[in-house]
């Protein structure tokens, strides 16, 4: 179906120095997948709102443990698990998938292929994520830290993922330029990797559970692969896809990119086993060694980023979209340092089992994956005319999310250090250890609140865009149906 509306080439508004590149496509070329991509990113935005809300509720419980404690649905243990699972399944993953589909659709002449399937996939996926969150709140969580979704929800998500696969594969196959870019490799590897580890974890934990401590090992393996490998690859894939657009020049180095890629796929999947897990010594020792070796791919990613943005820092920072990517990138390197802290001998004894790990997790999932997802979404949206006047909203969101992230991650990290040092001293009673961290935990509530506001604004922006476009489509269709046939003939 041809989109009839004619539009001007969009004019840059506000004080955003935008590079012309991203606006150069004619509308027909990219609009083919609007609803499909919107299904994924919009749903992801809504998922983030739900997860951030749950996370905020969990955080408030550190102000008063009796807060909503008489409702089984909202007890800390359930809200917290629901927030973590919602962040991953409802927020980060669909947002990244949407950004991936959007970018691939943009570089394919016909836009997104089988966009109906992709939209259906988004609906099914989010249905699964909702089922999962509700299931966790009702007490049907699995009991594992990483793989927390009830089986029924996973089946639904798998169906959504399969539909997405059809569409994204066809879109990729249809790409205009045959050569492969670095971003293609990162995005595809991340996508397939996520599918593979989720499937393996589903079989080994949900369907045919392994025995004893193996369950924890499978879970740790899944978390390391899903977050440290697949998540990182998807996040960097989105960044590498759009960086040339934002900076106006090619990526710095393909070789550094390959080094990041190979380093991550060879090493990061081994890093899941925590140092004092009740498993034979060789497993945590291997995890420590591989985590330390991950310094190399992380450094390569850092060099590549620095080379790519050098002398463009201001441009990126003042661009309402690219600044999300800058903060996401900073969050990534912060989370890398956090990961090292959990494994490096000596430091890990203090930081293990403390709030340090949630701080790292927040930096990685909310910061890196979440913000790169937002950046990818907005970069994709720039080729649509509805975006005028959105720059201010994007700026507000950016500051809300960034401030929220900092106010979450930094206090939690400090709480982790305080807590870890206190646990080391057996003369400090348990309640006293908790009391020392409380101030920081309560400070992080402010961060949670700001992030929630940021995600709500993001969600509202996307919904208003969708509404605007929906209305346009509808009136257009209506006009075509109602216009007398003769006039249509004449118009032709």
């Amino acid at each position: 179906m041809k989109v009839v509306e004619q539009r001007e080439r969009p004019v840059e508004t506000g004080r955003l120095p935008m590079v012309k590149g991203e606006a150069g496509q004619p509308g027909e070329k990219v609009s083919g997948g609007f609803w499909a991509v919107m299904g994924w990113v919009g749903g992801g935005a809504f998922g983030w709102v739900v997860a951030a809300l749950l996370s905020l509720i969990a955080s408030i419980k550190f102000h008063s443990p009796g807060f909503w404690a008489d409702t089984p649905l909202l007890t800390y243990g359930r809200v917290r698990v629901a927030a973590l699972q919602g962040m991953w399944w409802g927020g980060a993953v669909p947002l990244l998938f949407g950004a991936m589909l959007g970018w691939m659709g943009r570089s394919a002449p016909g836009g997104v292929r089988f966009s109906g399937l992709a939209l259906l996939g988004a609906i099914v996926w989010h249905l699964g994520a909702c089922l999962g969150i509700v299931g966790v709140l009702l007490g049907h969580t699995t009991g594992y830290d990483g793989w927390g979704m009830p089986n029924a929800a996973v089946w639904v998500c798998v169906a959504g993922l399969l539909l997405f696969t059809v569409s994204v594969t066809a879109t990729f196959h249809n790409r205009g330029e045959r050569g492969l870019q670095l971003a293609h490799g990162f995005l595809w590897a991340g996508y397939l990797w996520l599918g593979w580890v989720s499937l393996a974890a589903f079989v080994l934990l949900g369907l045919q559970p392994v025995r004893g401590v193996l369950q924890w090992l499978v879970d740790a393996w899944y978390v390391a692969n899903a977050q440290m490998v697949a998540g990182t690859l998807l996040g960097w894939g989105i960044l590498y896809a759009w960086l040339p657009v934002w900076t106006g020049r090619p990526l710095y180095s393909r070789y550094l990119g390959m080094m990041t890629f190979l380093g991550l796929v060879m090493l990061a999947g081994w890093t899941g086993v925590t140092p004092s897990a009740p498993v034979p010594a060789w497993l945590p020792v291997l995890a420590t060694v591989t985590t330390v070796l991950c310094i190399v791919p992380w450094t390569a990613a850092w060099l590549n980023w620095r080379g790519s943005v050098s002398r463009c820092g201001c441009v990126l920072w003042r661009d309402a979209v690219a600044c999300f990517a800058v903060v996401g990138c900073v969050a990534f390197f912060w989370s890398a340092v956090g990961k090292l802290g959990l494994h490096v001998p000596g430091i890990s004894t203090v930081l293990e089992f403390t709030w340090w790990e949630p701080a790292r997790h927040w930096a990685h999932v909310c910061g890196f994956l979440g913000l790169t997802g937002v950046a990818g979404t907005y970069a994709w949206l720039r080729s649509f005319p509805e975006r005028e006047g959105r720059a201010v909203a994007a700026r507000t969101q950016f500051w809300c999310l960034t401030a929220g992230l900092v106010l979450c991650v930094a206090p939690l990290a400090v709480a982790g250090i305080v807590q870890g040092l206190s646990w080391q001293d057996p003369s400090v009673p348990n309640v006293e250890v908790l009391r020392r961290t409380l101030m920081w935990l309560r400070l992080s509530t402010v961060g949670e609140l700001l992030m929630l506001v940021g995600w709500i604004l993001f969600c509202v922006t996307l919904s208003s865009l969708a509404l605007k476009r929906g209305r346009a489509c509808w009136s257009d269709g209506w006009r075509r149906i109602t216009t007398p046939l003769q006039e249509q003939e004449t118009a032709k």
Partner: protein
Amino acid sequence: MSMQSSLDPQSVTDAKAGQVTVPMWLVVLLAVLGYWGMVYFDHHGGWFDARVYAPFASVSVVNELQPVSGAEAFVNRGRAVYETTCALCHGSDGQGKPGQAPPLAGSDFVLGPSGRLIRIPLHGLTGPIEVRGQVWNLAMPAMGAALSPEDLAAALTYIRQAWGNNAGPISAAEVEAVKAATAGRTLPWTAAELKSIQ
């Protein structure tokens, strides 16, 4: 921005990445960290042994910290096996029970050649048998057939050294040798048969 004007939109989006090579120091860093990793694993990893947990470095360290010497541990294990498998009939004190089983304390069949003793639990015993001057005529099932050679050897060592018995230990290897030598046998032994074994 000066760079904006010079850009051709199409070439920007589809630009390939640059060709800057990986700096040598990063490769050296990889090598150094890899070397450190190998040394660290060698010192702390326990070489994939399932019985080595942190903070122990190797199985020999764990071995040195075990409560008692190997022989004593073996006897303790034997006691545990005896208590669960044999004590119901032969009694925890090894004195046997009238109408159920003859005593083991001071029995020639227990204290005699190891091959004789090992055969009894492996296949059972039937018919009349004289123990400490008293004749018993009962049937013993093959109680030890399902035990592992180590458990059986431990239990037999225990009864050879408990209650005042004082005979040499029996090793798992001996049990396995007897098992192999009597592989096809299904019938229980008789006292006469056993006496012919030295």
